[in-house]
């Protein structure tokens, strides 16, 4: 029973056009900037940074304005719970089924679009100063705008085909952005690695689409449209037990893109790109694409129940849900553990992103789509803030290693405070941060979901929360507090630039707003029922819009997560700030070191994928090449055809000469020679006899098969 049957599709030209504008403006500015870059190269000049930077930011502001217009008109004019605005035009139309370009405005996509627009514009503004002095300034903004356009396209897509098109465009733009410093070998190979990991995901995405198309074709209504698919399920033409396998394949795509467990190797390497790129792509927006896709195709692994929690049907569909959840949990754990061992500030944040993505994946798997989305929103805000602060720190210390930072508190007060807000959000400091409410909703969701071994998943999630608290406070101490470890004469940490500071403050304010809003919503919700059902309680309101309701917010549920967070923070402070000998010895113990370097090389997943993908690929390639050159070219063509024809030629001319004069006198000695040769057959070699015998057997068998074919026809 899907709540979708009450949905009404509306054709609102104004909203659809503004949505198209949201997508098109960044694309156009991006392409225009790349064109400018072309001019720059041709006549060896460099346009003023103010011009190109402002064009880039203008493109983003355009789409931000449109996004705000859409979000307000949509939520006021229409009742978001039951009305969706969808508009599409045919892209490839064949008689039976057409693939369409389509925009769908529904609660999820609108909020995601607005969030994306807001964060992207802030980061663009930040980047105008961060990239100051870089030669390929225009190319940077061109590709960044191109990327944001593709991301908008993916978020607003109304069907899987368009989603797939923009999904691969995301992959390409992330390739171009990671490979921004392409002369550097590590950046080029990191870009290649990122694209190939995503490509693996894309292939499974493509096969998933093909499966869904085949299933819907069998039901004589071929479509890839989310809205139509949910209708087909609700009126029973296709059942969820058919869709679970394509759901799994689409999740495969999500694994590739959102760096879930096996394929997360590329995200740490993606840190090769400039920090704004890491902030925008590899923390808040692009890696969320996979999980956003999960929230769009939740009907493949979850039948949404009306009341308390979503039913996960037993049998096959449960497999997908369990897989998503458990993969999420394990990614969270692995991400957190590796983050412990990372020394580069951006790598720590990258691994913490992987772990938070695991969290969101876990929530999506349990069927609480709105909880996942809730944490996705909060994580996007504070993680982009953290990356920007990291960018500021790197900018002033000119190195990404935490060991030559420290004591930056007095030199960079703004960054210090904004980083603190961001880290509190990440840690989920009790009651005052948005991270706390979204993480708590997550933990509640996993605790009473009916995924097998949910209790164990809950404890792992709890441990990961503790570890997150530990490494974020470790990061905070090593960078800002404590004694400065950089060599004084070269490095002079300076206050962050004016525009970067503004960007940091805006994002910090956003995090604070969210925290206050959700605190009032949840705590207030406990007090009065009215607040609980009103706009303030974001989680309940979101669930209500989508039609899935999780467990209401309750204080007792928060206690375990509070304890984990407090324990994590105190341990980190004890170990790094107050340098307590016992804790230090704990850290240096032999067993821990051995464990550490196991975790450090990412549990061997990268090596595994290298060995599985590259090794056999190359080996098979060389075997085929050898076969191709040696056997097809070498043997068949050269020996059989060339030599064969030559031999045939000289045989025929020999036959021709002997034939004419040899016939008459040849007959005589042929018989004697025949006799002589026959006698030679008795060579005494046992293997020779065996060969003759087998030759006879072969002859016999082939005659039998020929006879067999004559008499019996294969039934």
């Amino acid at each position, binding site marked *: 029973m899907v709540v979708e049957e009450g949905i009404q599709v509306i054709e609102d030209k104004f909203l659809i056009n503004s949505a198209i504008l949201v997508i098109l403006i960044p694309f156009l500015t991006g392409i225009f900037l790349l064109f400018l870059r072309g001019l720059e190269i041709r006549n060896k000049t460099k346009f003023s940074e103010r011009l190109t930077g402002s064009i880039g930011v203008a493109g983003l502001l355009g789409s931000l304005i449109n996004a705000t217009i859409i979000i307000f008109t949509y939520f006021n004019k229409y009742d978001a719970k039951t009305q969706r605005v969808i508009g599409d035009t045919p892209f490839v139309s064949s008689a039976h089924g057409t693939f369409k370009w389509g925009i769908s405005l529904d609660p999820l996509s609108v909020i995601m679009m607005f969030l994306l627009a807001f964060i992207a514009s802030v980061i663009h503004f930040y980047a105008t100063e961060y990239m100051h002095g870089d030669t390929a300034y225009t190319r940077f903004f061109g590709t960044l705008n191109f990327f944001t356009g593709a991301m908008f396209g993916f978020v607003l897509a109304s069907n899987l085909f368009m989603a797939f098109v923009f999904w691969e465009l995301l992959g390409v733009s992330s390739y171009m952005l990671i490979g921004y410093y392409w002369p550097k070998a590590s950046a080029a190979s990191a870009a290649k690695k990122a694209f190939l990991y995503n490509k693996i995901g894309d292939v499974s995405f493509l096969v998933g689409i093909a499966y869904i198309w085949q299933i819907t074709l069998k039901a004589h209504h071929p479509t890839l449209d989310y809205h139509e698919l949910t209708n087909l399920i609700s009126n029973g033409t296709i059942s969820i037990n058919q869709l679970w396998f394509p759901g799994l394949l689409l999740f495969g795509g999500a694994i590739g893109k959102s760096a879930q467990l096996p394929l997360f190797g590329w995200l740490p390497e993606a840190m090769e790109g400039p920090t704004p790129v890491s902030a925008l792509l590899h923390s808040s927006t692009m890696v969320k694409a996979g999980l956003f896709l999960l929230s769009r195709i939740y009907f493949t692994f979850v039948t949404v129940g009306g009341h308390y929690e979503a039913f996960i049907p037993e049998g096959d569909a449960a497999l997908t849900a369990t897989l998503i959840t458990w993969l999420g949990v394990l990614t969270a754990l692995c991400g957190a553990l590796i983050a412990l061992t990372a020394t580069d500030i951006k790598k720590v944040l990258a691994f913490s992103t992987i772990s938070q993505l695991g969290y969101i994946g876990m929530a999506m798997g349990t069927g609480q789509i709105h909880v996942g989305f809730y944490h996705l929103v909060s994580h996007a805000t504070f993680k982009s803030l953290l990356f920007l602060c990291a960018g500021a720190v790197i900018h002033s210390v000119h190195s990404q290693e935490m060991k030559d930072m420290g004591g930056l508190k007095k030199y960079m007060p703004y960054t210090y405070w904004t980083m603190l807000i961001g880290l509190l959000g990440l840690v989920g400091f009790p009651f005052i941060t948005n991270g706390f409410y979204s993480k708590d909703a997550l933990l509640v969701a996993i605790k009473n979901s009916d995924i097998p071994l949910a209790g164990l998943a809950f404890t792992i999630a709890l441990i990961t929360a503790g570890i997150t608290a530990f490494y974020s406070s470790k990061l905070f101490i090593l960078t800002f507090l404590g004694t400065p470890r950089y060599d004084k004469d070269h490095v002079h940490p300076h206050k962050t630039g004016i525009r970067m500071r503004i960007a940091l403050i805006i994002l910090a304010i956003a995090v604070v707003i969210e925290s206050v809003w959700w605190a009032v919503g949840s705590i207030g919700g406990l007090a009065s029922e009215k607040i609980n059902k009103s706009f303030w309680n974001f989680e309940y309101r979101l669930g209500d819009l989508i039609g899935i309701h999780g467990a209401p917010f309750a204080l007792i549920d928060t206690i375990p997560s509070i304890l984990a967070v407090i324990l994590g923070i105190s341990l980190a402070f004890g170990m790094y700030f107050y340098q307590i000998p016992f804790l230090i010895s704990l850290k240096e113990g032999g067993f821990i070191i051995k464990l550490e370097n196991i975790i450090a090389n990412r549990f061997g997943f990268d090596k595994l994928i290298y060995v599985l993908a590259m090794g056999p690929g190359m080996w098979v390639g060389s075997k085929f090449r050898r076969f191709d050159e040696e056997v097809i070219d070498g043997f068949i063509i050269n020996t059989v055809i060339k030599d064969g024809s030559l031999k045939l030629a000289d045989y025929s001319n020999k036959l021709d000469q002997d034939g004419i004069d040899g016939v008459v006198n040849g007959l005589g000695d042929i018989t004697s020679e025949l006799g002589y040769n026959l*006698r030679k057959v*008795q*060579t*005494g*070699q*046992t*293997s020779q006899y*065996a*060969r003759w015998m*087998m030759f006879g057997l072969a002859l016999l068998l082939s005659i039998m098969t020929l006879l067999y074919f004559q008499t019996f026809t294969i039934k």
Partner: protein
Amino acid sequence: MIPVEWFLTLSVVMFVGGLFGVLTQKNAMRILISVEIMLNAANLAFMAFNGVFYNADFPNSFSASDFEGWVFVFIIIGVAAAEAAIGLAIFLSVYRNFGEIQITNIFTLKEQEV
């Protein structure tokens, strides 16, 4: 359930592998090993056909039970053991007389060169 064809394909492959061994190897020991492989191929085929021929559609099926496939395998294993023992004994004695058991170099059973 594994279809019978698979067992038979495998047994044919083994048989032909053994045959290839017998034909190409020069060393008597290796030939005996390849013969062992061919015997195992036969065993596999017998095992595959065990119990197949005992059913109503084959009125004249002579056996009263459906384990004669196994009995044949039992016999073959016995015979193979005997054969291996005798074969190796012969090889040892040949080795003692000719100093080596490379069959290409031992060809006294040959029609004398005229």
